[in-house]
């Protein structure tokens, strides 16, 4: 991994949208292969305690945006942030904005996200507004969340409880007049209370799918939604909201156990369904 470089606001490599902030970060620490100005970028943020549904949506939205050449910006936290980075890495580029120094983050985080960070460096960049060894404080994350809002053209909140840091990003997006979208979630799920409230109050528009996201960026989606027919399609539909165990799946679809097992096994092999470590099955 190359060392981080520091760039100031006067530098031509400095992302111009950051100048919209009241106090643009100076300098900005960057480690990665990406040309930082980030002409086309979307921020996808959300809670660490995400539902299976939220993780899938974050991943799919990020993959769709990345495939269209848009850089996906997020905060490299657990949950929605990680899902967004992973989705973007499948199809394109992504940038992670850290709430602490880059070296400090890499030294403290767990193996899984260190791996993810290494991939981001290869297909994007890690960005921090603090010197490499600066440790995290509550207020550094508040600043970081605002920076994420400023970096992108469009901000998307996938899932956020009522006290989520993602709501800081949303508020900053409003202040900077960035288009703000929230993914509607089920009523009664704590992880969706804050994001649903954004929609209810009119601060955010409800995001209904990847096509709407691309349209908001002035892009056409690359085609119709892929549909799978027959039992496979019904299984995928049943798994859309949350992971299920085989018994619940059989009950819901009215399928006999052997038929379900075969179809599910095929979906598992094709990668459209993945096993959870607790023995349930989830849509990828």
């Amino acid at each position, binding site marked *: 991994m190359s060392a981080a470089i520091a760039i100031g606001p006067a530098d031509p490599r400095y992302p111009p949208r950051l100048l919209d902030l009241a106090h643009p970060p100076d300098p900005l620490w960057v480690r990665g292969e990406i040309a930082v100005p980030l002409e086309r970028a979307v921020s996808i943020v959300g809670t*660490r*305690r*995400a539902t299976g549904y939220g993780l899938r949506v974050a991943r799919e939205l990020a993959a769709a945006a990345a495939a269209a050449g848009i850089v996906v910006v997020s905060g490299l936290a*657990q*949950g929605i942030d*990680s899902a967004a980075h992973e989705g973007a890495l499948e199809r394109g580029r992504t940038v992670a904005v850290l709430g602490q120094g880059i070296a400090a983050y890499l030294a403290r985080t*767990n193996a*899984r996200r260190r791996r993810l960070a290494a991939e981001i460096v290869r297909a994007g960049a890690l960005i921090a507004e603090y010197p490499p060894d600066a440790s995290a404080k509550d207020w550094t994350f508040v600043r970081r969340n605002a920076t994420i809002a400023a970096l992108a053209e469009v901000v998307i909140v996938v899932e956020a409880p009522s006290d989520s840091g993602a709501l800081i990003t949303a508020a900053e997006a409003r202040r900077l007049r960035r288009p703000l979208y929230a993914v509607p979630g089920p009523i009664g*799920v*704590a992880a969706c209370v804050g994001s649903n409230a954004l929609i209810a109050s009119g601060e955010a528009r409800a995001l209904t799918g990847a096509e709407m996201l691309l349209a908001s960026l002035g892009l056409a989606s690359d085609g119709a939604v892929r549909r799978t027919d027959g039992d496979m399609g019904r299984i995928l539909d049943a798994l859309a909201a*949350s*992971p299920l*165990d*085989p*018994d*619940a799946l*059989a009950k819901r679809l009215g399928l006999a*156990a*052997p038929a379900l*097992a*075969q179809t*599910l*096994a*095929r979906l*598992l*092999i*094709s*990668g459209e369904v993945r*096993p*959870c*470590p*607790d*023995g*349930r*099955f989830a849509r990828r």
Partner: protein
Amino acid sequence: MRDRAPIATDVIGESRSPTPEVKVRAVARVWACALWGLETALVTVEVDVANGLPAFVVVGLPDAAVQEARERVRAAIRNSGYEFPLRRVTVNLAPAERRKEGTGFDLAIALGILRASGQLAVDVEALCLGELALDGALRPVRGTMPRVRHALARGIAAALLASANAGEAAACGADAYGFGSLREAVDHVAGSARVAPTVAPAPAPPERPAVDLADIAGQETPKRALEIAAAGAHSLLLVGPPGTGKTMLARALPSLLPPLDHDEALAASAVHSVAGLVDPRHPLLRSRPFRAPHHTASPLALVGGGSPPRPGEVSLAHCGVLFLDELAEFSPSVLDTLREPLEERSITISRAGGAATYPARFLLVAAMNPCPCGHLGDPAVECRCLPDAVERYRGRLSGPLLDRIDLRVNVPRVPYERLRDEGRESSATVRGRVLAARERMAARLVGTARRTNAELTVADIRRWCRVDDYGEMLLGAAIRERRLSARGYHRLLRVARTVADLAGSDQIRADDVAVALLMRA
């Protein structure tokens, strides 16, 4: 040279003494049996009572407990109304090159001394096992069963033991005589008060299984997994929120297993005998052991050890079920010790004094919560765990252990309305299918020591696990896409073989492969 000559003739002198005024000096011999783990060896307790300064020496690598036998035997002989010879008493435990442990030699030593000093007029033609109390009472010892079986195999049919051990010996087929004290034993041997041989206790009535499958509502997939586990002896992991019936499912497993056959009953009972866990009224186990050690168990408690070594839970579960509830709460070092018994189906404990080997062919069933709070995926309670915490929780199970678990299923919360479902299958019905599948396996493995699909070798798999075309396609795709390891592939085929056996099919069909794939998730 002149001094030594008479001693040399004296030692094996038996009754060929040179002059009539020298008292007849015989070396008395009594049979006992030493025990290391489950390994046994016949021990000849040789006692010599010679002129000289009063002394009592035990040779032949006795450990501390055997050394202390001197004090117990001395007091017991005196307090039983006999005389402890005020001469030089030498006891040799032959063969002398291996270490002898425990208190089981007391009776043999005492009888040997009485015989050698002439207070007992006839030889003792029986295996003698028992610990002496200072007042001469006879106390039971651990490990009676394997020792008596060993003596039987060596042609010693009679056994003199403490009353509490007599049932165990009789159950092994020996002529067992139980006594309350040294005095009774001597009177019996001398013929002045014969005791009738103990009758082999009636086998315990077959235990009613703790849980019947019909007691459990819903949970079709976990029940199916239990059936597969029971049929092929595959290890099983149940994952689900608290209170969904993981423990109940595990406790239903013994009700699906075939009954213990005689050999298995003897083998399993022998381990319990060594551990001192035999019920004297019903020494032979009738139902398969179900062991559920708590998650605070130490490695010693789980796999055995200590000094003298005792069998651990894995061996007490021999021929039965080992249930580890809250698997993630066990300390990783404890779980790592499970790898050897899972692979070798026995456990060897090596110590300075030698190695002890215990059998450990058990069916492993484990249960765990999906996350630290337990409610991940629970529709009733919202999970409050961060993804990292969930990952850390699962990371506590080592990869090598998870790799050795064949089946993994989710045990979901059953909605209230389905708790009242009727028409559930009973254990007896499922057990019928399990028995039929076991017969198919046995027919295939006839002539080998292996009995179940879980034990199939790679060569067996190549020979017996033929998959139909569509199943082959599924397998091929699974290997390509899921990067199945060679071990994982063989494990998958073993499970698929069992699923096919349960369906009564010689060929493994695509359906069977699919079921195995889903439960290996």
